[in-house]
């Protein structure tokens, strides 16, 4: 319970910090998580937007590519994907929708099947495709950016701008495609717990490999594990916790630690 409250507090604090642009603070940092700098309250740059500017139409500006990568690398090597579980505002949103997703999973068999289908594991590679294809590839070759249809940009940038400045803007050609994608995003996170983090988040794709080598990670003492699967049941990322070893999908939320009746799962630092 204490861990749950600690995590909620950190997430709320981090979300408030990410929105200090409200009081006029605009920094030159990049977020280490997914958040849009078009948000009227944003305090830093979106890492994906910055990379896109660094590769736009093949005009490589290495410092704009390196900067967000190094910020993510610096945090990733210490905390791995804990950023997703403890800091990301979109993670906080999915924490709020997670309860609905869990209820739906228990009520409707087909939703449960989605999460257990054999292709589910492979769907998790979609986020790497999005990162390399839509964030880097199409931006470098065609100039079409992920930003143009980004659901997070739509929900945290376009919508607040429209609300705060009524009558000042009209929709451009990307507005309605982005709106449809945003609706699909909401449906996804309401039906699959942490669906965005699991399958689609390009920033999660950048952080995920660091789980293999990060200082902080989750350790399961397999010799003492009785295989009750309570940890896997509560895992928002749908990981087979007893058999995981530095899993790239783990967001270090610690739900499995709290659920384990024999305390065989713990945060570890090396």
């Amino acid at each position, binding site marked *: 319970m204490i861990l749950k409250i600690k995590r909620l507090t950190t997430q709320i604090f981090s979300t408030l910090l990410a929105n200090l642009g409200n009081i006029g603070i605009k920094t*030159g940092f990049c977020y280490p998580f997914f958040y849009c700098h078009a948000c009227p309250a944003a305090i*830093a740059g979106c890492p994906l937007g910055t990379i896109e500017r660094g590769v*736009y139409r093949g005009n490589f*500006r290495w410092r704009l590519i390196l*900067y967000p990568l190094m910020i993510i690398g610096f945090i990733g*090597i210490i905390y791995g994907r804990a950023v997703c579980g403890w800091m990301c505002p979109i993670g906080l949103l999915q924490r709020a929708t997670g309860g609905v997703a869990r209820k739906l999973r228990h009520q409707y068999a087909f939703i449960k099947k989605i999460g257990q289908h054999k292709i589910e594991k492979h769907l998790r590679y979609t986020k790497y495709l999005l990162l390399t294809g839509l964030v880097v590839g199409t*931006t470098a070759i065609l100039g079409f950016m992920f930003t143009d249809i980004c659901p997070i940009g739509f929900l945290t940038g376009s919508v607040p*701008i429209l609300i705060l400045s009524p009558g000042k803007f009209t929709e451009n050609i990307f507005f309605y495609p982005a709106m449809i994608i945003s609706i699909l995003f909401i449906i996804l996170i309401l039906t699959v717990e942490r669906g965005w983090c699991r399958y689609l988040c390009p920033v999660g794709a950048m952080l995920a490999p660091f789980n293999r*080598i990060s*200082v902080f990670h989750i350790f399961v003492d397999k010799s003492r594990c009785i295989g009750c699967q309570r940890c896997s049941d509560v895992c928002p990322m749908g990981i087979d916790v007893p058999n995981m070893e530095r899993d790239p999908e783990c967001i270090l939320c610690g739900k499995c630690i709290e659920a384990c009746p024999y305390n065989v799962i713990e945060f570890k630092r090396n």
Partner: protein
Amino acid sequence: MKKIIAIQITIFVLTSGTLMGLFLYHNIYDEVQLKIVSVLCLSCIKLNPKTHIQFIFQTANHKAHPDFVLENLTKGPLFIYYTQDACHGCEIMDPIIKDVFNINFDKKSFFYKTVFLYNSNITFIHINLDHSPSEMTNSLFIYDKDHVGGVPMFVVVTLGYDFDVVKPYYTSAYGTLDLDTYEERKEALADMILDGIELYKQNQAGFRIEER
């Protein structure tokens, strides 16, 4: 275990060293702050600002008109075109601007030229925020009349009569001007320029730089 620790230390040193280098030698902090966080690519926010062509005296951030504007204002009105490298809207507007002014410029550079248009001298200034001097890039916030904070942005600076004093008088327009076709956009820009020329002709006799 030792191998992992070695990798951790290597990546930690590499990332922190590169970040330090970027901060110290490439001014990356200011670049991201001024060109990404503070200035939006309007096509990226999936919105078009509605443009109201209305000339005003008060600058958007209450700062004085920059010197490069005042110096050129003695020759005729100014047209300033603000762009960025990664900007879909700028790619739509570039050919229209070139057509209106009958000029050619590299979209990735700072460019300025005094052209003879509609029987008047008009100074055209192209400010690509990614490749222009800071005095030029900071002027975006001076002329961001509607506080949109995005590119492409078009500014006409001319002269206006304000309580016995002739002062710089300007208007701004944004994005693809909330219009759909090449011709409509070209016509809107031409109207904006013609208004600027007309105002300049009416007031140029009374203009003194020191009275700005």
